């Protein structure tokens, strides 16, 4: 439409690249001014999780595979890279290659087994594999993974430009580059013929089979691409936080990714990114809220739930599932649809609500219009390339 409507991602990217040079304070939202190392690290983590959620949505929103084990590939990239540097004394670049390579191999192997069952069975199998990974990491076999403590990255093997608090800006740019890479890969694959088959599998797997295509191979490719992206994310995480910790492998990490994607809007181009950024930011700020004096002064009925970030996130998640089926990314379309429904008068409404007698009368028109409205950007995406 307008120039801004078409080029806002590029404009946003320029702004994000320039953030480390700014010293604008953002009171309330962030602790320090924009360019300070602490803020840059938080922003880097936000971008990293935004990218991870975007990669995870390749499975959930694009192919319709509900994987509960995505953290495994993130943790594999993280730990293998760290261990390749610690144990084999490889330089960082080589270790990162080894890490991503091993993650891809792991995704091929486990995906080939897990995809033999479909639907919910697949979810449970991926969950079980991820749990095995989490157990392996926390049991510390042969002193390799460092158990609960994790292992710090050896600073002497990192390039000089990546070590130290004065180089946080570089790490932030690396996270931004990873985000751009992920968005590019996801956009490119989704708009390729491969991506159309994925969309077909998501909508109706049986029909894809009837068309003479075997969904298994296509699903495996989606699984491996998403796994590889997560592995690369693990490498970026290693740089950002300076070590590998077992929390990265826990099943909570996958659930967090799931919450991010659903919060932002699964299957949309910007939704998972938005969800990942918001979740990571909220996770940090809610921790501060839990320890703040205002909360400590509240009566127990309010204090106990507010002091548990996981409770707040879980409740928020349930609320989003209920009230915002398309996530935050579907919000503008829902508002527009709501306005249209109000504008066309009451004539159309009774007809629709009569058709879906089970749905509550108020949500009938909105939920009926939302899927169509969220489908439209996807269709444009496909035809634009």
């Amino acid at each position, binding site marked *: 439409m307008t120039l801004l409507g078409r080029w806002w991602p590029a404009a946003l990217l320029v702004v994000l690249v320039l953030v480390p040079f700014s010293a604008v304070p953002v009171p309330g939202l962030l602790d320090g001014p924009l360019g300070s190392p602490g803020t840059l690290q938080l922003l880097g983590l936000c971008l990293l999780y935004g990218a991870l959620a975007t990669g995870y949505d390749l499975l959930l929103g694009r192919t319709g595979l509900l994987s509960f084990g995505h953290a495994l590939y993130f943790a594999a990239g993280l730990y293998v890279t760290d261990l390749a540097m610690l144990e084999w004394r490889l330089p960082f670049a080589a270790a990162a290659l080894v890490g991503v390579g091993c993650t891809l191999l792991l995704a091929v192997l486990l995906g080939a087994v897990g995809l033999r069952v479909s639907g919910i*069975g697949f979810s*449970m199998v991926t*969950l*079980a594999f991820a749990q095995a990974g989490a157990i392996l990491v926390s049991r510390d*076999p042969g002193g390799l993974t460092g158990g609960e403590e994790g292992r710090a990255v050896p600073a002497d093997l990192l390039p000089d430009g990546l070590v130290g608090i004065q180089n946080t800006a570089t790490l932030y740019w690396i996270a931004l580059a990873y985000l751009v890479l992920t968005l590019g890969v996801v956009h490119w694959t989704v708009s390729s013929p491969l991506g159309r088959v994925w969309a077909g599998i998501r909508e109706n797997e049986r029909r894809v089979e009837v068309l003479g295509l075997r969904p298994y191979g296509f699903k495996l490719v989606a699984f491996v691409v998403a796994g590889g992206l997560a592995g690369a994310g693990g490498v970026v995480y290693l740089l950002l936080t300076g070590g590998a910790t077992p929390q990265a492998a826990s099943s909570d990490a996958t659930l967090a990714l799931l*919450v991010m994607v659903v919060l932002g809007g699964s299957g949309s181009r910007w939704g998972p990114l938005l969800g990942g950024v918001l979740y990571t930011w909220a996770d940090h700020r809610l921790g501060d809220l839990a320890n703040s004096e205002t909360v400590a002064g509240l009566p127990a009925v309010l204090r106990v739930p507010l002091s548990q970030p996981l409770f707040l996130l*879980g409740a928020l998640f349930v609320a989003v*599932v209920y009230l915002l089926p398309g996530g935050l990314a579907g919000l503008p379309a829902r508002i527009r649809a709501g306005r249209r429904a109000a504008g066309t008068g009451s004539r159309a409404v009774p007809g629709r609500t009569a058709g879906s007698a089970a*749905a509550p009368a108020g949500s009938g028109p909105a939920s009926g219009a939302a899927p169509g409205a969220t489908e439209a950007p996807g269709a444009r995406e496909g035809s634009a390339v």
Partner: protein
Amino acid sequence: MDTVILLMCTGLGLGALYFLVASGLSLIFGLMDVLNFAHGALLSVGAYAAWWAAAEGGTGFLAAVAFGTGVGTLASVLLELVLIRPLYSRPRDQILATVGVGLAVPALLMGVWGADARPFPQPSALSGTVHVLGAVVPVNRFVLMGAAVLVLVALRLFLSRTRYGLIVRAGVEDRAMVTALGIDVRRAFTLVFAIGGAAAALGGALAGLYFGSVNPGQGTGLLIFAFVVVVMGGMGSVTGAATASAGVGLVQQFANYYTAAGLGDLSVVVLLAVLLLVRPGGLTGRLA
């Protein structure tokens, strides 16, 4: 020899715990296609309610277990009516809603009673040991096994002898057909949730006995192995779940003892992978 007996009893006791969680999961999944991630939370609710009744309320063990099971059942019915029922037309969102509950409830328990494990009061009649073929086995293993067998028999009787059992079995086979015949499957949904919640909460109360304490993360830890059991047993099959839970419990205990600790948990997952490669439909393939 006595080590083998002890390991067998412990493995079967653990398997019984898995079965109590997995039977409800399997039925709920078979009938409603809902993977209930809040099932671990239900177990935790049952465990904490039983602990609260026994430690704070000062009731006897049996009353505490009954109280825990009751509270868990109530929570389960509430979960179905308030959260799952409005989402019948959106199957994936049902799973996501249970994920949210599964995150929020343990966090709430942690907020109220703290993150540390609370010691579960052991009744003197059940805290001793018995001698089985020369092995010294804690009594609570047999309590768990007895409870699991009881639940299994009750479930089989319910499924095969009662009218609602018939509806549940038919619903697992083909839900659309049952609805088309004019039967309100939704009541069966609530019923299955109640049964599943009761079994899980009973499991939670008895887990307090087995582990000697309750903590907020217990349910989630058990839930993952219950998922493995459900997949292995064939989804929707109660008998399959029973066989698989005994197998998983035994493999885990033996592997943990004879190899390095932690390898047992891993070997269960390897077992799952092998089974899926050989028989993608699970042990039984289909229901009952």
